[in-house]
């Protein structure tokens, strides 16, 4: 078996195990070389199915190379490289090691050709990524990590049950198009949906990502949810239900994002919103829309990482990423400011930035396909994402009211990582052809038409006008030191209260019963306990001779009964 027949995910997973053995400069060099090696590994792969393993009579394909898996393989490896450079300043190898193992698991999952391999890597992403949440190092990070872990493992269990049902019904474990009507279809749908942060299953994302360390969040933002997008695109392309689900995902998080104080949480909400665009693309299921989803996943991973890196740098230098405590940081961190604005322009879909060339495909697919309500919702979400990610993030962190906080510019390794991401954002935006060339289907799409560019510019400029007017007139809600409840309130508070209520009801019921029956029971209990004490009838030790006598009595009784019975 040559290296071209092994999953590139294994390169990172095995490599991550060796990382803690190295120190100092050697480790830094290794952290950059490992993902570069992974890129070389990817470039050696040929289309087809490799790494076939026999398992209980089933053919497991650990390496399925086609245009879908290669696209996600490339972007995951690039994300691993950028995140690794961003993590170079860390003294402890733990986060980088967990990060590589996590990235490797995600890559292993996208190259999985069967459900068992997918399940194994799916669960591995959960196990490795929770370490990055815990690396946040606070009590709340620990708790959020536990909640995150339970949710992720649940998703994996559903995937496993789905695989079992499919196997029993069809005798195959292959991971191909599934659809809702297939055996176990709904289990797969919900398993993927949990990881993709569908509405009402989304809260783990906003709960855990902002609690992770500054490095951890950058890793986290790239893999888990996009792995779910990949799985949905493979298994549920053209499922109509995904269109309303995706549209809701684009719209509702932006309301939360506008009033959220923790800027990393704002980014988590906008991550949710961007996933919505991809889910709509999968639901529409045409070649244009699926290309749009793939392209948007690619560009999104880079600009989202860039935004999380810029907020991570702020957190690292200032110690907080809360809008109410920041402002005026452009004076201290000019380069980080520029990088953040490039990320903000990309996520907003400004022409010449990467988001424009990918999101446009999904919007066009919705517009052409006569999904009018969906199209209007996506347009609203586009304006909204510019509003909260494009303007709010840079404004409250780097401009706005000067907080008086002065700090150093971000460390060099962070600046290099942000620089690479920023170059990719602008590069893809200016020259989308190389990205279009690796999309799953042939591309005949031109994003830069006059009406399209003008339409998008109008949308963004007038959204900026809305922000300016609301700021000028002081209508815009100020950043407050507060949190906002989300759907997880129902199980963190409501369900917990019901549980407590139930427990106390049970306890009082028990004591009431004991009171009523007390008098009668007391005699009974004394009788029982008297016989079960150290010297009680049933416990005390008996001499052997009395035992022999009782056996004799029993035998005689038996004899008697025997004769009488005849």
């Amino acid at each position, binding site marked *: 078996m040559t290296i071209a027949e092994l999953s590139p995910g294994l390169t990172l997973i095995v490599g991550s195990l060796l990382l803690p053995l190295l120190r100092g400069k050697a480790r830094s060099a290794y952290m950059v070389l490992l993902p570069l090696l992974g890129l070389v590994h990817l470039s050696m792969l040929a289309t087809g199915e490799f790494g076939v393993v026999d398992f209980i009579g089933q053919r497991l394909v650990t390496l399925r190379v086609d245009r879908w898996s290669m696209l996600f393989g490339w972007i995951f490896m690039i994300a691993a490289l950028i995140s690794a450079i961003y993590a170079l300043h860390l003294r402890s190898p733990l986060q980088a090691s967990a990060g590589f193992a996590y990235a490797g698991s995600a890559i292993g999952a996208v190259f999985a050709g069967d459900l068992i391999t997918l399940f194994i890597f799916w669960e591995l992403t959960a196990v490795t990524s929770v370490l990055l949440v815990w690396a946040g190092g606070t009590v709340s990070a620990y708790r959020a990590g536990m909640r995150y872990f339970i949710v992720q493992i649940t998703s994996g269990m559903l995937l496993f049950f789905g695989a079992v049902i499919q196997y029993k019904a069809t005798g195959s474990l292959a991971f191909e198009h599934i659809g809702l009507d297939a055996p176990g279809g709904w289990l797969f749908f919900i398993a993927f949906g949990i990881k993709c942060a569908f509405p009402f299953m989304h809260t783990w994302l906003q709960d855990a990502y902002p609690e992770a360390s500054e490095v951890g969040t950058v890793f986290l933002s790239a893999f888990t949810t996009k792995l779910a997008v990949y799985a949905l695109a493979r298994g549920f392309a053209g499922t109509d239900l995904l269109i309303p689900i995706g549209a809701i995902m684009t719209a509702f998080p932006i*309301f939360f994002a506008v009033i959220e104080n923790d800027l990393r949480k704002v980014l988590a909400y906008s991550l949710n919103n961007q996933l919505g665009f991809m889910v709509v693309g999968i639901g529409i299921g045409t070649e244009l829309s699926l290309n749009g989803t793939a392209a948007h996943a690619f560009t999104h991973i880079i600009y989202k990482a860039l935004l999380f890196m810029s907020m991570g740098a702020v957190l690292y230098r200032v110690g907080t990423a809360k809008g109410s405590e920041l402002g005026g940081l452009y004076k201290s961190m000019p380069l980080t400011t520029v990088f953040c604005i490039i990320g903000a322009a990309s996520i907003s879909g400004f022409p010449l930035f990467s988001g424009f060339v990918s999101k446009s495909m999904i919007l066009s697919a919705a517009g052409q396909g006569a999904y009018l309500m969906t199209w209007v919702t996506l347009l*609203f979400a586009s304006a909204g994402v510019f509003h909260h990610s494009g303007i709010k993030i840079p404004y409250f962190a780097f401009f706005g009211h000067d907080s008086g906080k002065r700090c150093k510019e971000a460390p060099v390794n962070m600046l290099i990582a942000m620089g690479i991401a920023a170059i990719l954002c602008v590069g893809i935006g200016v020259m989308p052809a190389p990205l279009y060339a690796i999309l799953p289907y042939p591309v005949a799409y031109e994003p830069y038409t006059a009406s399209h560019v003008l*339409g998008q510019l109008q949308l963004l400029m007038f*959204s900026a006008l809305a922000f300016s007017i609301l700021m000028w007139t002081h209508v815009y809600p100020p950043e407050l030191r507060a949190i906002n409840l989300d759907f997880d309130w129902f199980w963190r508070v409501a369900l917990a209260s019901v549980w407590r209520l139930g427990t106390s009801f049970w306890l009082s019921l028990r004591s009431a019963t004991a009171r009523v029956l007390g008098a009668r029971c007391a005699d009974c209990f004394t009788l029982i306990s008297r016989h079960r004490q150290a010297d009680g009838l049933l416990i005390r030790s008996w001499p052997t001779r009395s035992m022999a006598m009782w056996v004799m009595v029993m035998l005689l009784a038996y004899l008697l009964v025997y004769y009488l019975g005849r």
Partner: protein
Amino acid sequence: MKKPINQRQPEPKRWLDHPRNVRKIYFSVWIGCVILLLLELLIDKHVETAAEHWFGFHGFFGLIACVALVLAAKLLRRVISRPEDYYDHR
């Protein structure tokens, strides 16, 4: 060697620190919007949906959408905003 912050000279004022420059930015956003509306008269539109044929559709849609978004979010805040330590007591 940099001096500690409290011994340094007061910082020079930046361009953005002057309110008149902030006002300049504010009005240039207005001007930008007007220019983009005027540009629409010059180009030959090729669009995908009927609504996009309306003059300035994207612009006005963006403006109304964002104002509505912020006002709705303000109402939402009244319902769901809690002190930062809310979950610590539960």
